[in-house]
């Protein structure tokens, strides 16, 4: 029950299969890293989990604590407790970070109930402080003109404010400088708990030096072809993906 479970997921776009019988189970309390060459379907997986409508789901299930979220609207999936930190966060002109997160929080309350503004700002500022974000940012339009690293930091701020059950982070490390990588990782580690599961998509070991994964998966051609502990990531870092591809080729031959 306390898992995010992806079962036999087949997804295509424009008739081209991208996810192929994909299986993955993330129990609460664990951090799973997902690695793999460019274009193997990692972001596709993340977006399908979040309810993106561009993709055709051929078959499969995604169970969030036992409840199938596949086919639900993106906002329902969000309310069910799934958060996606995007690889490429969108800019929303004219909407301040503070108002945006507030609207997202408000959307979780029952009809007629309002956010306590004082408490909200207190919490927002505290979380910004811990991510070393300048408080002036709250007034800026969401992601508009943000540097790559600022966008990623802002994703993690939203993640911290919305307290999801499952966090999917798509290449959050890309664009972060060395200090930011540490700060953001600390923020994520702070959120780690028995009540929460993580799927961390990344290309580099350097993130996993900070956010130490319980399980590492290697994805290739639309499915997971190899899983292991944190040592697997280090192995990939030194050896690259060729051996995975070879192994895959001989297995499917």
């Amino acid at each position, binding site marked *: 029950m306390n898992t995010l479970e992806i079962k036999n997921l087949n997804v295509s776009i424009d008739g081209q299969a991208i996810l192929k019988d994909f299986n993955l189970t993330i129990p609460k309390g664990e951090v799973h890293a997902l690695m793999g060459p460019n274009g193997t379907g990692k972001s596709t997986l993340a977006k399908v989990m*979040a*309810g*993106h*409508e*561009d993709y055709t789901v051929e078959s499969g299930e995604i169970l969030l604590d036992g409840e199938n979220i596949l086919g639900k*609207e*993106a*906002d329902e*999936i*969000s*309310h069910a407790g799934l*958060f*996606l930190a*995007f690889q490429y*966060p*969108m*800019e*929303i*002109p*004219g*909407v301040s970070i503070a*108002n*945006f*997160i507030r*609207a*997202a929080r408000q*959307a*979780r309350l029952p009809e007629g109930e309002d956010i306590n503004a004082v408490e909200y700002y207190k919490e927002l500022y505290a979380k910004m402080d811990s991510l070393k974000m300048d408080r002036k940012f709250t007034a800026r*339009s969401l992601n508009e003109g943000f540097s790559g690293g600022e966008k990623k930091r802002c994703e993690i701020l*939203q993640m911290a404010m*919305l307290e999801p059950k499952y966090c999917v982070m798509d290449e959050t490390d890309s664009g972060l400088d060395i200090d930011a990588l540490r700060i953001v990782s600390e923020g994520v580690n702070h959120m780690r708990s028995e009540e929460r599961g993580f799927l961390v998509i990344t290309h580099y070991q350097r993130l996993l030096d900070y956010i130490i994964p319980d399980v590492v998966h290697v994805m290739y051609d639309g499915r997971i072809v190899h899983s292991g502990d944190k040592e697997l990531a280090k192995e990939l870092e030194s050896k690259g993906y060729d051996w995975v591809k070879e192994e895959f080729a001989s297995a499917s031959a």
Partner: protein
Amino acid sequence: MSDTDLQDQAIQVDTEKGNFSYPEDYEFDAGVGLNEETVKYISKVKNEDPWVLDFRLKALEIFNKKPMPTKWADTDLENIEFEKIRYYLSKGQVPARSWDDVPDDVKETFERLGIPEQERKFLAGVEAQFDSEASYSRMKEDLEKEGVIFVGSTEGLAKYPEIFKPYFGKVIPTSDNKFSALNSATFSGGSFIYVPKGVKLKQPLQAYFRINAENFGQFERTLIIADEGAEITYMEGCTAPKFETATLHSAVVELVALKNAKIQYITVQNWSSNVFNLVTKRGMADEGAEVKWIDCNIGSRLTMKYPGVVLKGQGARGEVLSIALANDGQHQDTGAKMMHLADNTTSNIISKSISIGEGRSTYRGQVHMPKHLKNCKNNTECDALLINTNSRTDTYPAITTRGQNNTVQHEASVSKVSAEQIFYMMQRGLSEGEAMSLAVNGFVNELMKAFPMEYSVELKRLIDMEMEGSVG
């Protein structure tokens, strides 16, 4: 949800708050269609001076002669059936000074629209017009003592001709366009306001225009005169129930700001999607004076409205800030006109339009700066936001500037709310409607800061309602 679903549902929506009507019960009814008799009837019911009847009859002639502006404007205008419209409907009441004296159905109407409550909260005076005539009109007593006049058009012309007659029909001549002529022939209701020298109103005066009857044409006429150094903010709101048949609203609004006076005129229009809204609005600014139009157009079938300022005196300032939202089946054809007639005059136009689904927005601007003038400035910014791919937007800026001592700055942009932006916001838990509404609010955000608080709250509420509705 597919795009067509979205659009189908968008057609259902509009001004739910205003979408109700009471059974008709009128003492005076000019019947259907427009001819000399109709005009004479209106004038007689109002007990007008002969010069007013003359003015009306001449206007009727001009109206009949002028062609529809379909050469450049929306051909949907052809669908107005002038012979099927009712031009005057009233219960024969004099405007009550207390809500208690307003007939029950009318009072309930305005209560449902929240007018008495707003009056208590932040207004210096209110006039509430129901079809052709005002049912309620009241201004704070201290303003009366200061000599402020706030009455309907009939009362204004009858009681204070020495004040109003010299400016009546002068800022907007009858022949300005076909609809100003129509209004001049059939006008009824509206506000006539005079603010004496040096009097500065701290709170706004408000008028609320309500159409209740089907097939009806509302032709209110407003004239506001701010004497030297006077200051006034005037706000108008409008709604109508959603009928199957077309309704016509064609107002004329003239503003006169004498030396160093300031007039701010705010409109939040939320007409239902059967209303043709064809309004002529123009202000005249004398030396050092300022005229500012804040114009928000939501709803209606077709709106044609280009508020203007004639910058007549040295150092006069004119401003038009407008927001137009065109949903499915609607066309917002709006813009601004700035006529610089003296040195050192400045004008500013900021127009933001939002087109949703099949909705269409058009911006028409005209800035006129003759070459003998010095030191004149105009800034024009028009931004369009498109939601869903079918929406369309056109911009027709016409800037006639000559002379080297003047500056004109023009910026235009078109942006879209992309499906990816909506997905991003929905991933954070916002519904599709909330997400669109937030994007729209973001788009108009900067401009809304220029509005009085109460009005930006109301506008935000209307946008939320419209966007919620457009996804069902």
